[in-house]
């Protein structure tokens, strides 16, 4: 209990009759980089606003540093928010913007000066103190917003898609910079994003949200390798979904019949025979070769229908039967790639294929 920086218990928020956040429970550890990931409208930003204190939850509890924060106004909470639009004060220069939080804490000018210098060098803005927000580039504005939120040393920093307005290259740079910064300062970061790659790169743990609910919480590799539901598998990365019927179950293995083709996959719960299930398999886990492999169990033949060259790798659409086409990604290690119309052998190590939990109705 002592370890958790932020805890949400059965948190719900409704706007009128419309539920936006539904029964969200999370425990976020001190110093953790925690992401709320989901498509727009999934309730992630609302959850963040509830944490910051801009909105009050309809039900449930919020604990910040172990104490109940429900009803506390934003200025009484030890959390700061970095806004998606930065929300820099247009009538104040960089110095005044960043010093705002310290002035509100009634610190003297001589106390503010060293703290300001420290944070500005941390975000590499030294020398721009007298500029006004509109005189700065997007990336610089973003760093001012970050400095303004960090300078008061909050125990939790909330970030609402802070890199959304930057171009791709700058975004990649800032992702690494943010991560480094978070490690260095050891502040809890709660990061809202709809960009799965961003969440995978930066987070210690991710909560995937859909329609106001948390669908899965886990480390990036858990979320990617063992998606709990079809939604998670579909939202994060590319996935082949194969529908079939259970033939036999030998925990943890499940044998599934897909239009006459038998495949084995990982599936923990005990499944009854002939039940309809969905198997998920990532395109890059599937191997592709011209010769029959003698050792593999999950091995099939197929016809290359389409291929898309992507530089580092190539994406193939391989037809196994009339209604079963799989996407396969292969790294372009040599030039002996496959051509359209080739007959190929393909397969995967059984643990890479996973029987998904049936989707719980919202």
């Amino acid at each position, binding site marked *: 209990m002592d370890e958790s920086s932020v805890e949400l218990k059965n948190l719900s928020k409704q706007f009128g009759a419309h539920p936006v956040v539904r029964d969200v429970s999370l425990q976020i550890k001190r110093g953790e980089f925690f992401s709320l990931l989901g498509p727009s409208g999934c309730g992630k930003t609302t959850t963040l606003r509830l944490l910051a204190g801009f909105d009050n939850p309809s039900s449930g509890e919020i604990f910040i540093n172990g104490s109940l924060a429900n009803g506390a106004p934003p200025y009484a909470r030890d959390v700061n928010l970095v*806004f998606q*639009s930065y929300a820099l004060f247009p009538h104040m220069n960089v110095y005044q913007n960043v010093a*705002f939080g310290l002035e509100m*804490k009634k610190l003297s000018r001589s106390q503010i000066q060293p703290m300001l210098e420290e944070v500005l060098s941390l975000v590499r803005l030294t020398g721009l103190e007298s500029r006004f927000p509109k005189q700065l580039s997007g990336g610089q504005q973003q760093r001012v917003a970050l400095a303004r939120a960090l300078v008061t040393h909050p125990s939790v920093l909330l970030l609402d898609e802070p890199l959304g307005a930057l171009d791709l290259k700058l975004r990649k740079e800032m992702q690494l910079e943010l991560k480094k910064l978070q490690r260095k300062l050891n502040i809890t970061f709660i990061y809202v994003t709809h960009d799965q790659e961003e969440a995978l790169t930066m987070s210690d743990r991710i909560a995937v949200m859909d329609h106001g609910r948390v669908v899965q919480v886990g480390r990036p590799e858990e979320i990617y390798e063992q998606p709990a539901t079809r939604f998670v598998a579909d939202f994060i990365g590319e996935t082949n979904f194969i529908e079939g019927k259970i033939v036999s179950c030998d925990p943890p293995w499940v044998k599934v019949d897909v239009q006459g083709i038998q495949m084995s996959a990982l599936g923990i719960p005990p499944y009854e025979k002939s039940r309809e299930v969905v198997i998920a398999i990532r395109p890059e886990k599937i191997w592709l070769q011209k010769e029959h492999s003698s050792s593999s169990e999950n091995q099939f033949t197929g016809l290359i229908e389409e291929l898309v060259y992507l530089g580092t790798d190539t994406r193939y659409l391989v037809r196994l039967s009339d209604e079963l086409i799989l996407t396969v990604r292969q790294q372009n290690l040599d030039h002996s790639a496959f051509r359209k119309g080739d007959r190929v052998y393909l397969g995967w190590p059984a643990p890479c294929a996973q029987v998904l939990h049936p989707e719980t109705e919202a």
Partner: protein
Amino acid sequence: MNERSLSTTTRATVPIHRRATLWDRLLEPVLGVNACFIYVFLYMPIVVLIAFSFSASPFSAVWGGFSIDWYIQLFQDSEIARALRNTLIVASFSMLFATIIGTMTALALSKFQFRGRNAFETTLNLPIVIPDIVQGISLLMFLVLVVHLALGLPTIIIAHTVFNISYVAVIVRARLHGFDRRLEEAAMDLGATEWQTFWKITFPLIWPGILSGALLAFTLSLDEFVVTFFVTGPGATTLPIQVYSMVKRGVTPEINALATLMLVASILLVTLSILLQRRRSS
């Protein structure tokens, strides 16, 4: 920059392709003359008024050479001085009250969602279109028969505050329309209370709107006649009422001088108000 220059060139090339017909060629000078007539119609009376305020002749419509005697006489007229003092008192107080109440109203309307908000907003704008005479009669009835106030400067101040609130609220509201509410959230997030947030963030960003509303309120109060006429009492003569009673005794060039000065003052205040409204916040 590039886009703008591009669009002007396309606009400029369009008429070349369209042949000017005979009808067009005949119509063009007619339109020009028409425009001239409109300007003469609108501004000639004012120009004549200003010109005769500098006439040495004691008769309004006879030119008697250039002089500023009427302006000198105007400044020595104690009745006019008293009326001017009353007018400035009424304008200042009604501006102050209307600005405070109107700004608070505009803030509440833009910040909160409450039942009947749209209805409230519509009724708030109503005094702008309600005929002055209706407003004058209703205020007279209300202040005298219901509130039992004696007619005088206080009743004029109340009446002017009433219609000025609408103007201030509308102008401040327009200013708030482009105001990013997240700035207030950011300030509160960084530890500012509601009160600190208003004075450090909201007010500095919307003050041109507030000041512009205040100036308009002052200007409207300065030359308000109809409503004032109903709620004025003994000893509470404002400048427009004074001019009216002077005109009843005959139009002298002194009135021309007074009207000219009022015109100049109004134009200056309204121009200032418009400039402030245009001033960008960011």
